[in-house]
């Protein structure tokens, strides 16, 4: 048998098959390794999109979801408030309604009567008479008890998991009935007014005022039990707030200079570089968030989508000291929305709220907003706590955080402070103009509850809110299909080249 030299045709076929096989291996290898990282490495075209961050998904479908611009606006007083004329006019109207309707135990009373009592009580509180407001609410509660409302409501099992279960039940049942809703309002208002009326004296050590605070907190807890999902959980955070301050009556520096009102440890040292509003998300998780933002969303879907939000609060030591209802970390937007609600619809600017907002914003990497919150807290320092040493420690903390943020951002502190001053002045001026408008229109006989009451003001001044912008979104880059194909082509080419070299080498050795 003789070794015949290969024909020209067989040499070509062998070479072609070898190169083809090598190219195929190249395709497989790039497929196994993954083309996405090569697209990134080679800087090939990507398809860019904006993905909503999970805190855009509300706790309850259709409820309020946080925008970071809300925090910015609230600390700069860029939100509507009502003045004395407004509350006086509403009080007068409510008192006229109350006087015109029967108020006898056992006599059927309409919801209009109960609503008028709520308006009158809130108006008293807003006009600086919380004790009067509490008396009106006690009268309402007595009427409700006479109509069969439960006198004893157990709040001992008030825990987050229990509240979640109750919220789900209510969602399925289609919300509260009218009587329970009215009872919820009574307890929420009564608790609030008792807290308002007693707080100052309680901090000063008055035992009666401290007992009043305890009673107020109990009413707030009853309100939470009756309606756990109300006002984006504002009452829950009000209860935490009060529990935090009550626990600070003894050794205030150990609590107030270590934790914020939701139990998140106050930031220390350098600014956290990895702070984010959500952890990095897979495409499946992004899909879940997208779905939760559609009309198909339900409570369970929302809870699943909100799982990816950065969790905050409920430090173990804080939980032990406050024995509050907030005993495990929660998505950061929950306390933020609660504090914003208390600030805008309740007691207004407060150093504890400003500190908590700053701390939480820093925790999720919103440095500029955090700096502004700290600045606002510093301006409210005189109201932080009666003890001068505690106030001094508070101010030191705020300034050190601001310094750390400025260093991390490489910013000019004077420029930030000037901007803060200008925005705060703008917000206050807008609020003042709106209150003056209210007084003028009411004096002219307009009804402050009419839907078109603010029409002329809105037309002249416009909205005070900042545009939300892109802070609540993340930019996402997905390799384009063509880029994937190009990487495959490149790998195929590289392996094919290897195959061609092998063929030449084999021929060189005369093996084929």
């Amino acid at each position: 048998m003789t070794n015949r030299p290969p024909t020209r045709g067989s040499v070509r076929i062998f070479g072609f098959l070898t190169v083809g096989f090598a190219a195929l291996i190249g395709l497989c290898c790039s497929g196994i390794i993954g083309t996405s990282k090569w697209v990134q490495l080679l800087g090939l075209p990507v398809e860019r999109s904006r993905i909503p961050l999970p805190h855009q998904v509300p706790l309850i479908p259709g409820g309020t979801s946080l925008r970071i611009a809300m925090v910015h606006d609230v600390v700069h007083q860029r939100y509507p408030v009502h003045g004395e004329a407004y509350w006086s006019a509403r009080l007068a109207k409510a008192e006229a309604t109350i006087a015109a309707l029967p108020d006898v135990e056992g006599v059927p009373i309409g919801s209009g009567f109960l609503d008028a009592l709520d308006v009158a009580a809130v108006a008293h509180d807003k006009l600086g008479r919380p004790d009067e407001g509490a008396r009106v609410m006690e009268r309402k509660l007595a009427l409700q008890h006479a109509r069969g409302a439960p006198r004893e409501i157990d709040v001992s099992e008030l825990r987050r998991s229990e509240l979640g279960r109750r919220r789900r039940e209510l969602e399925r049942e289609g919300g509260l009935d009218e009587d329970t809703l009215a009872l919820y309002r009574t307890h929420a208002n009564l608790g609030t007014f008792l807290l308002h009326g007693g707080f100052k004296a309680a901090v000063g050590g008055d035992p009666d005022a401290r007992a009043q605070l305890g009673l107020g907190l109990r009413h707030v807890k009853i309100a939470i039990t009756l309606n756990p999902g109300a006002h984006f959980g504002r009452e829950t955070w009000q209860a935490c707030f009060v529990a935090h301050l009550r626990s600070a009556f003894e050794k205030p520096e150990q609590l107030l200079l270590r934790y914020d009102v939701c139990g998140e440890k106050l930031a220390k040292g350098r600014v956290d570089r990895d702070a984010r509003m959500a952890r990095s998300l897979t495409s499946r998780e992004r899909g879940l968030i997208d779905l939760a933002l559609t009309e198909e969303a339900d409570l369970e879907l929302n809870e699943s989508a909100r799982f990816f939000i950065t969790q905050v609060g409920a430090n173990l030591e804080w939980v032990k000291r406050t024995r509050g209802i907030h005993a495990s970390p929660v998505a950061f937007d929950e306390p933020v929305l609660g504090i914003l609600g208390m600030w805008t619809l309740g007691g207004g600017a407060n150093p504890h709220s400003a500190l908590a907002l700053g701390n939480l914003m820093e925790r999720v990497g919103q440095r500029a907003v955090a700096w502004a919150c700290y600045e606002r807290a510093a301006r409210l320092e005189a109201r932080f706590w009666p003890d001068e040493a505690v106030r001094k420690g508070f101010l030191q903390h705020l300034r050190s955080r601001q310094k750390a943020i400025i260093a991390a951002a490489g910013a000019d502190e004077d420029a930030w402070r000037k901007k803060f001053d200008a925005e705060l002045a703008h917000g206050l001026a807008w609020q003042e103009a709106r209150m003056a408008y209210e007084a003028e229109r009411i004096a002219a006989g307009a009804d402050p509850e009419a839907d078109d009451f603010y029409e002329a003001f809105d037309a002249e001044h416009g909205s005070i809110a900042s545009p939300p912008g892109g802070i609540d979104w993340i930019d996402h880059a997905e390799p384009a299909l063509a880029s994937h194909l190009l990487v495959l082509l490149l790998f195929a080419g590289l392996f094919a080249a290897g195959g061609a070299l092998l063929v030449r080498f084999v021929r060189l050795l005369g093996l084929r």
Partner: protein
Amino acid sequence: MMRRLALSFAAAVLVTAGTAAPAAACINEPRTKHEEREFRSQYDETLERDEKPANEGILPIVRAVVVGAVGASLIGGSAWVATRP
């Protein structure tokens, strides 16, 4: 000057109101829900989903052309080299 005075007055009113009510508040009256909705509605303006972030310009396309050309050349060149006798 008058404007500054008015602003200072407004700030003083707010501070005084806050001092009188140091604890946070949760009021409930028939218009509370309306006010909450009003506050929320001001932030309803959302970015359009198809609003794309800024692109990186022409460079990625140039790179794509180069990668494609290199890949195709390597395959073509390899086939030519391997099939030469």
